[in-house]
């Protein structure tokens, strides 16, 4: 043991000085990206959360399976019947879920394409998180991306690759502006971003409906609230069986990582997100950082929207945004607001969503089970203490530290 160890270890007692009165346990969860060991508890916690969710999901499968329920009635006479039926139900559902999501190249491609917008929108939420902003507005930012990318896509007439690029940029810029507006409002007036983003979501949804009722956005000769399809010249090309959007999503993740960990702007974003007062004292322009943070978050949501309009579906409809904007929040949460985590969480959610449909088709288990699993995973991740309690991972040291911190001396 080095001589300084005794100096370090009592650090939890630091409150003695009266300089650190804030309870800071809440923020401890984030791991240091450069220290592999610090990742371990996070990884284990997430794995346990997923495992627990799967177990609870299995119970639901059994309880919704006709054969298993019938066997349950005579459980004590022929227990094997019930357990066989239950096992069959669980196995067929979960194996269908896996096969349906990653069972073949084709399925895998679908999963990746489903995951791509989740990853991008999730990155937007994560980035804002790191800047201390709780961005609920990915939905609204995506809607503006839809409108811009879609409009460019089906109205303008440009050469193939150029058209796609222009539409892409239009979607990203529109999302960025809508997000940036939230940041500007916060920086200028102090309006809380949670409130403004929620309201901006409603606003965007209504604007989308309004636009789709106007000739400029409506399919010619139709009164349906649906736009014309995006021109072929503006759609994403394929790269190895998946559309270009998937590649863009991974590039975006790499870019966000670089921005956060390697750039001065990222340094500012993280500093402001963690301690705005110290950041201001160190000469950072906190208002500017908030605005830029939301601008970038909006740009990522806008990028997510282009994957829908220029990738999967080619025309605008009121339901196009779906749940992606909100799932993005859970993806970011599950990914601990880090780019890598967000990618992994996005892939998981994409797989669950694609696999869920296959599960319903082949095993008859409702596809909503996949959503239940998503919700349970996030629930357990959001409540790490619960998971630790379930698995008795809580070490005596960490438990006591919390108390020592609470009462200085």
């Amino acid at each position, binding site marked *: 043991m080095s001589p*300084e160890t*005794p*100096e*370090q*270890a*009592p*650090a939890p*007692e*630091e*409150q*003695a*000085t*009266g*300089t*650190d*009165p*804030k309870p*800071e346990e809440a*923020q401890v969860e*984030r791991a*240091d990206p*450069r*220290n592999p060991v610090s990742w371990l508890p996070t990884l284990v916690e997430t794995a346990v959360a997923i495992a627990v969710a799967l177990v609870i999901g299995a119970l639901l499968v059994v309880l919704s399976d006709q054969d298993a329920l019938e066997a349950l009635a005579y459980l004590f006479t022929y227990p094997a019947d019930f357990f066989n039926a239950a096992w069959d139900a669980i196995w067929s559902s979960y194996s269908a879920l896996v096969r349906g999501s990653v069972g073949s190249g084709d399925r895998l491609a679908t999963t990746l394409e489903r995951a791509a917008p989740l990853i991008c929108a999730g990155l937007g939420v994560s980035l804002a998180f790191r800047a201390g902003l709780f961005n609920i507005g990915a939905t609204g930012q995506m809607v503006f991306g839809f409108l811009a990318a879609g409009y460019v896509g089906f109205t303008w007439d440009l050469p193939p690759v150029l058209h796609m690029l222009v539409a892409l940029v239009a979607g990203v810029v529109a999302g960025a502006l809508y997000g940036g507006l939230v940041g500007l409002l916060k920086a200028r007036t102090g309006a809380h971003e949670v409130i403004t983003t929620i309201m901006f979501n409603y606003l965007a949804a209504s604007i989308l409906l309004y636009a789709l009722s106007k000739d400029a956005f409506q399919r010619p000769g139709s009164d349906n609230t649906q736009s014309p399809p995006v021109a072929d010249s503006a759609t994403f090309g394929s790269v190895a069986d998946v559309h270009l959007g998937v590649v863009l999503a991974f590039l975006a993740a790499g870019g966000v990582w670089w921005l956060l960990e*390697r*750039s*001065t*702007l990222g*340094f*500012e974003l*993280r*500093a402001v997100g*963690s*301690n705005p*007062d*110290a*950041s*201001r*004292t*160190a*000469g*950072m*322009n906190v208002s500017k950082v908030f605005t830029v943070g939301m601008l970038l978050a909006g740009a990522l949501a806008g990028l997510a929207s282009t994957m829908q309009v220029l990738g999967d579906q080619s025309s605008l409809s009121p339901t196009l945004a779906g749940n992606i904007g909100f799932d993005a929040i859970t993806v970011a949460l599950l990914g601990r607001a880090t780019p890598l985590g967000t990618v992994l969480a996005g892939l998981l959610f994409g797989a669950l969503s694609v696999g869920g449909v296959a599960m319903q088709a082949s095993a008859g288990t409702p596809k909503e089970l996949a959503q239940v699993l998503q919700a349970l995973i996030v629930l357990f991740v959001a409540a790490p203490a619960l998971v630790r309690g379930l698995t008795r991972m809580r*070490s*005596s*040291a960490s438990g*006591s*530290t919390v*108390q*020592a911190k609470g*009462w*200085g*001396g």
Partner: protein
Amino acid sequence: MRLEIKGLTKRFGSFTANDSIDLTIEPGEIHCLLGENGAGKSTLMNMLYGLLDPTEGQIVVDGEPVTFASPRDAIAAGIGMVHQHFMLVPVFSVAENVMLGREHTRGLGVLNRRKAAETVRELSSRYNLAVDPDALIEDLPVGVQQRVEIIKALSHDAKVLILDEPTAVLTPQEIDELMEIMRELKRQGTSIIFITHKLREVKAVGDKISVIRRGKVVGTAPPTASETELAEMMVGRAVQLVVDKEPANVGEEVLSVENLTVVDPRGHQVLKDVTLAARGGEVLGIAGVQGNGQTELVKALLGLVRPDAGTIRLDGEDITRHGPRESLDAGIGYVPEDRSHDGYVGDFSVRENLILDLYRTDGFSRGLALRLDAIEQNADARIKEFDIRTESPETPVRSLSGGNQQKVVVAREFSRPLKVLVAAQPTRGVDVGSIEFIHKRIVAERDRGTAVVIVSTELDEIYALADRIAVMYDGRVVGVVGPETPREEIGLLMAGAGAGTTAATGTDTEVEA
């Protein structure tokens, strides 16, 4: 009540916070527990108060071994605790706070406020603790809030009162009052465990002094022991309580403040027409009780607060309208008074905090990209130079001890060329060893020709460093005096009286009766 602690040990994993501690608190005794931050004082008290389970050892009350599962048990056994951070509900009255948790009720759960108020009045007259039972906590000064905490403990019939760093939040006058209260409690038979790291206080009221270092009782001393002896016991080596410094080699006027006025958002004038000057090669100490405008003065110097009137000049250039970025760039170094709030980002590593206001300079970034190698080298160099005790440069600053956190802030501010160093409470909550080190560095910075402005509420620190002392009271500079001015005289100035003793430079002085 006689309280004995026998072989009390607490381990957190492999770390032993308290190692077989033996203490005896006799009835009616003020027992001082002296130790640096992180020495294990709080762990010990948390065990005594039922917040932590001892790993080994016993607590014995009047010969009977006891175990405390929760503070409730400890309170029932006659132990009361006044925490450093008060556990009061700000919007409740004094009486309501005192009865909180065991409210007297009449009939259908109607609170009997009168009874509670009577209890408070009775205790306050018995122990000479002046408190109005009907006053709201949020309207009371900190010193009075502390009295409420004491009354709360006494209302539970506490026989042993634990005061955890009670003077950290008090003004010198309030400290004197608290000591009087402690003596009164003692006269009436209450024992007090007085936790502190301030030597002067220990000597003033203590009957017995136990020194804790690294989780062990390293010795006991009578209050007649000298401060040097006590400090050595506490730190474990010889310490220099007085900073060695040459006479100041005073140069040109570097920073000048003229008629500076700041009005806070509630419309109060918190800084009133302040005029001051700091010269190169000199330490200007700003003394005063907390909350007399020092915070605003410092923030205005840095551009964190926009002055409503007046001018700030650096080397003759008007910097009144500068923001923090420009002020820092112009060569002002800043050690904020509340380091965890303004000084560092707790989640950030030592390495990152060491460039918190330098990341945009050429050395540490190129375009948008951070230069990780340079940042790493800088961290290694500063950690070595300032003897920052950290596991690695990657360790989050939050998990360092207070002294080392402060060293990170100081190291960062000293790592660029400065014209002016503004340090507010540079050693608050810092252990003796680090105080010594930080003081030396401040003097070294002065000797390099920097104009140093030190704001401190601790007169000891002002005396240790300052070449000139400006005293602030009620938003004004009420006097600028030499370092040889006696403590009493400065104390009077701090209390707002006797402003006429020495003329303040260029500003009208205020005399308060």
